[in-house]
C-alpha cells in the first residue's frame, strides 16, 4: 500500500517536473532597455509606448503558443543632447548600449558606420501595417545608404512666432496678422521686415531692449533654417556631398549681426538661460522669436499661457532675401535598434517599435507632447484629429518642411557653422572673417565630403 502510494507520488512528481521543464523551455524572458534623448515627462510615451507594445506582443506570442516575458526598462534623458549622445556613444563602445535608442535622425549616419545600430528594415515588414502608412518623407529621413535604419518616432517643425498684441500695437490689424503666414510663405514678409517690426515694438516700450527678436539661445537645427532663408542648400543630391554656400552663410551671419546692431537682440544672446527664455516668450516679454512646435506644450503648460491662438501667431521662418525661401526644418526623432544583445533580442525590439508606431499609440505621444504625427492614418484617430494645434501645425508647417541631411560628416559641419555664427554674433570676428574661417576649417576637416560654393 505504502509502496503503491509512493510510486504514484513519484509518477505525479515526474509529470509535474516534465511539465515545468516543458514550460521553462517555451518561456522566454527578454529585457529591452529604451533610452530616449531630449525627453521630459511630457515625452513619456517615447518609452511608455514600448511598454504598451510589449504587452501586445506578449499576448500575440501567447496566442501562437509561446510564452514571452518582456521587461521594458525605459529611461528619459532631459540633460541636454550632448550628454545623451555622449552616454549612448560611450555605452555603445563598451557594448552596453540600450536595445532601443530614441534620438535624432542625424545620428544614423555616424552610428551606422560605427556598427552601433542595426538596420530596422532587416526585422520588420515595410509593406505591412503600421509601417506602410508612415509618411514617405519621414521614412526617407530615417533611411541612409538606401536602407531603413529606424522608425520615425515623431515629427515636428520649427516655426517663427509673433506676439499678436504687440503686432497690433504697431498698427497691424487682426486680418493683417491672420494673413501673415501666407505673406511669409510667398516671400512678401522677410526676416528684415521682422527685425524692423521688432524694433518698432521695442521703441514703443512694449518689450525691453534686446527682446524684440529672441532667437534660440543654444545650438540647434533651427539655425540651418536661416541659412536656407538666404538661399543655402545643405546637400547635393547628385553627388551626396554636403554644400557650403558662402554667400548664403555670409548673409545669414550678417542678419544676426544686423539684428544685434539694431539692438533687437543682444550680442551675448547665445548661451542665455532656457528657462528664462521660455518664460519671456510665453508671456509677451519678447515680440518675435522662433521655436519648435512642441513649445506649445510648455507655453500653455508650465508657463501658464491661457490663450495661445489669441496671443501668438506662427509662420514658416521667413525668407531672408530673393535667393532664399520661407522654410522650416523638421527634425524627427527615430527609434533605432542597437547592436546590443542577440539577433533575437533585436528582432523583438524591432517588433516593439513597429507596434509602438501604430497611429493610436503614436497619437498618445503626439498630443501629450505637442509633436506631430508620423503617419497618414493619425488623421483618423479622434485624439489627433480633434487637436487644433496638431492639425494646424501639420497643415501650415509640416507640408513645407525639409530635414537636415543624413551624412557622417554633417555633425562636424554643424558644429563649425555654429561656432562661426557665435564668433560673428558676439563680434569676436567680422562676418567675412567668420565665414572664411568656417570655409578653411571645412576644407581641411571635411575634404571631399563638402562642396564649397
Amino acid at each position, binding site marked *: 500500500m505504502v509502496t503503491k502510494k509512493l510510486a504514484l507520488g513519484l509518477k505525479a512528481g515526474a509529470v509535474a517536473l516534465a511539465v515545468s521543464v516543458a514550460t521553462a523551455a517555451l518561456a522566454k524572458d527578454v529585457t529591452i532597455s529604451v533610452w530616449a534623448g531630449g525627453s521630459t515627462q511630457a515625452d513619456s510615451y517615447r518609452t511608455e509606448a514600448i511598454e504598451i507594445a510589449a504587452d501586445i506582443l506578449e499576448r500575440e506570442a501567447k496566442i501562437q503558443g509561446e510564452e514571452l516575458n518582456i521587461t521594458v526598462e525605459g529611461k528619459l534623458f532631459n540633460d*541636454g543632447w*550632448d*550628454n*545623451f*549622445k*555622449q552616454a549612448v*556613444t560611450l555605452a555603445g*563602445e563598451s557594448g552596453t548600449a540600450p536595445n532601443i535608442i530614441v534620438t*535624432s535622425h*542625424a545620428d544614423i*549616419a*555616424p*552610428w551606422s*558606420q*560605427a*556598427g*552601433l545600430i542595426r*538596420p530596422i528594415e*532587416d*526585422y520588420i*515588414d*515595410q*509593406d505591412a501595417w503600421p509601417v506602410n502608412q508612415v509618411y514617405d518623407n519621414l521614412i526617407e529621413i530615417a533611411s541612409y*545608404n*538606401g536602407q531603413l535604419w529606424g522608425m520615425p518616432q515623431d515629427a515636428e517643425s520649427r516655426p517663427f512666432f509673433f506676439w499678436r498684441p504687440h503686432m497690433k500695437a504697431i498698427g497691424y490689424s487682426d486680418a493683417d496678422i491672420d494673413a501673415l503666414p501666407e505673406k511669409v510663405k510667398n516671400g512678401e514678409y522677410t526676416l528684415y521686415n521682422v527685425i524692423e517690426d521688432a524694433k518698432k515694438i521695442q521703441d514703443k516700450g512694449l518689450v525691453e531692449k534686446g527682446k524684440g527678436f529672441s532667437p534660440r539661445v*543654444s*545650438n*540647434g537645427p533651427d539655425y540651418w533654417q536661416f541659412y536656407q532663408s538666404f538661399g543655402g542648400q545643405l546637400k547635393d543630391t547628385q*553627388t*551626396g*556631398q554636403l554644400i557650403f554656400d558662402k554667400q548664403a552663410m555670409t548673409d545669414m551671419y550678417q542678419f544676426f549681426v544686423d539684428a544685434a546692431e539694431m539692438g533687437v537682440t543682444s*550680442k*551675448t*544672446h*547665445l*548661451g*542665455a*538661460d532656457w528657462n*528664462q527664455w521660455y518664460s519671456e516668450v510665453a508671456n509677451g516679454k519678447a515680440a518675435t522669436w522662433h521655436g519648435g512646435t512642441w513649445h506649445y506644450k510648455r507655453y500653455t503648460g508650465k508657463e501658464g499661457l491661457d490663450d495661445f491662438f489669441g496671443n501668438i501667431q506662427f509662420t514658416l521662418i521667413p525668407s531672408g532675401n530673393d535667393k532664399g525661401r520661407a522654410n522650416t526644418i523638421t527634425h524627427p526623432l527615430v527609434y533605432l535598434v542597437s547592436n546590443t544583445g542577440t539577433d533575437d533580442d533585436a*528582432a523583438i525590439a524591432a517588433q516593439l517599435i513597429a507596434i509602438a508606431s501604430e497611429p493610436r499609440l503614436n497619437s498618445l505621444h503626439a498630443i501629450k507632447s505637442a509633436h506631430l504625427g508620423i503617419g497618414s492614418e493619425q488623421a483618423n484617430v479622434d485624439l489627433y484629429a480633434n487637436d487644433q494645434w496638431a492639425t494646424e501645425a501639420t497643415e501650415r508647417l509640416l507640408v513645407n518642411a525639409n530635414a537636415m541631411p543624413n*551624412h*557622417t560628416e*554633417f*555633425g*562636424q559641419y*554643424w*558644429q563649425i557653422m*555654429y*561656432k562661426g555664427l*557665435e564668433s560673428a*554674433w*558676439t563680434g*569676436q570676428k567680422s562676418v567675412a572673417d567668420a565665414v572664411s*574661417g568656417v570655409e*578653411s*576649417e571645412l576644407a*581641411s*576637416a571635411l575634404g*571631399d*565630403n563638402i562642396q564649397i560654393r
Partner: protein
Amino acid sequence: MRQRIGLLGLGFMTPALVMVLVFFLIPVVMTAVFGFTNMGTATGISGGEYLLTPKIVKQLEIRGEFDKQSLTALSSNRYQVTEAGLAKAASDGLKSAYIQGLRDSLLGREYSSKRDFERALKKIKDRPRKVRALKKSAEYFSQSILNRRYLTDHEFKTALAATGVQLSATEFDQVLSASYTGWIWTTDNFTNMFSKPDTWVVAFNTLVYVLLVLAFNIGFGLFLALTTFYLPSGQSAFFRAVWLLPRISPPVLYVLLWKWLTWDTGFISTVLGWFGVPAFNYMLGSVGSAWAVVVLINGFVGASLGMILFSSAIQAIPKSILYASEVDGANRWQQVRYIILPQLRWPILFTTSYTTLSLLTSFEYILLSTEGGPGNTTNVWALEAYFTALNNYAGNLKYGYGAAMALVLVTLGVLVSLLYLRLFKFDELVARPKIEN
C-alpha cells in the same frame, strides 16, 4: 644586508610606482596614441570592418578615376535565386518544402532590389512565417556586397572578387581602403589644429585665463595670509575657515550660488534694482563681465591653497625677528616688505608653479558656469578638448582630435614644469644642507 634594504625600499615604492603607471603614464601614452588617429563617433575605437555603401560608391565616382561601368556594377543590389544559394540554404537547415518552392517558382529570376525580392518570397506557401526568418532567407541569394559588413579584409576581398566586377589592382585597393569603417593613423589632427584660426583664439583665452586667475590666487591668498596673521588667533582661524568654503563646497553647488548671485534675476541685480540699475546677467550678459565672473569663481577657489601655505610659512618665521623689528621701530608694512615676503619666496614659487599647471588643465568651473559662453568667448583649451572629444550638441565626438589637443596640453605642462624647476632653482632647494657637509 644592503640588498634587503633595497628590496624593502622598492616594496614601499611599489604602490607609488603603480599609481604613477596607472594614473599618469598609461593615460599620457593613450592620449598620445589617440592623438595620431582620426578616431571619432563614426570610426569607433575598437577597430573597423569593411562596408561598401552607396555613399562610398558616389565618393569614388567623384574622384573620377573609376570606370563608370564597374561603379554601376558595384552599386547594384541584385538578388537571384541560384542553385548554389539553394544548396547553401539547404545545408543551413531551411525547410525543404520552402527550398522546393523557391526552386519551382523563382529559380533564375533576378530582382534589382531587396524589397522586390522579399515581396516575391512572401508569395511562397511554405515560407518562414516570421518576418526576421524570411528576411534572413533572402540573404542566400544576394549577388552584391553593398551594405554588408565584413569583419576582415580577407573576407571583404573574397566577397568583392566573387561579385565578378572587373577592377584594376589600384581600383581594388581604393575600394578596400574606402570601405574600411574604422580609424587610421594620421597627423592631420595637428596640421588642422595649427592651421585653424580658432585654435589661436582658444589658446589666447587660455593664456588670459591662466594669468588672471593665477594673479588673483596668489595675490588674494597672500593678502588673506597677511591680514589673518595680524588678527588674534581666534578671529584669524574664523576668517581662514570662511575662505576655505569655496574650496570645500561641491563645485556644482558653489557655481549654483554664483548663478543666484549674478543672473539678471539674482542677488546683485535685485539689490542694484533698488537703486534703479537695470537687471543684468553678469555671468553671460557681456564678454567683460563673463570673464570677471570666471576669474572670480576660480580665483576664490584657488586662493585658499595659497592662504594656507603662506599662513603656515609666516607662522614659521621666528617671532623674535618680528619683535626685534618692532623694537627698531618698523611699522607693519616694513615688517611685511622686509621680513615676511622674503621668507615666503619658496611657498610663493611653489604655489605659482603648482597653480599654473592645474589651471592649464582645469575647466570644470567654466563648464558649470558659462560653458565657454557667451558665444565661445570664455572657452579655454582644456574645455575645447573636452567638447571636441566627448561632449557636443551634434554628438560628433572626435576622440582623435580631442586627444591631440590634450597632448599639446601635456607637452606644454611638462615644458612649463621644467622651466619653473630651472627658474626657481629647485636643485638648490633640495640640495644637502651645507652646514652638515
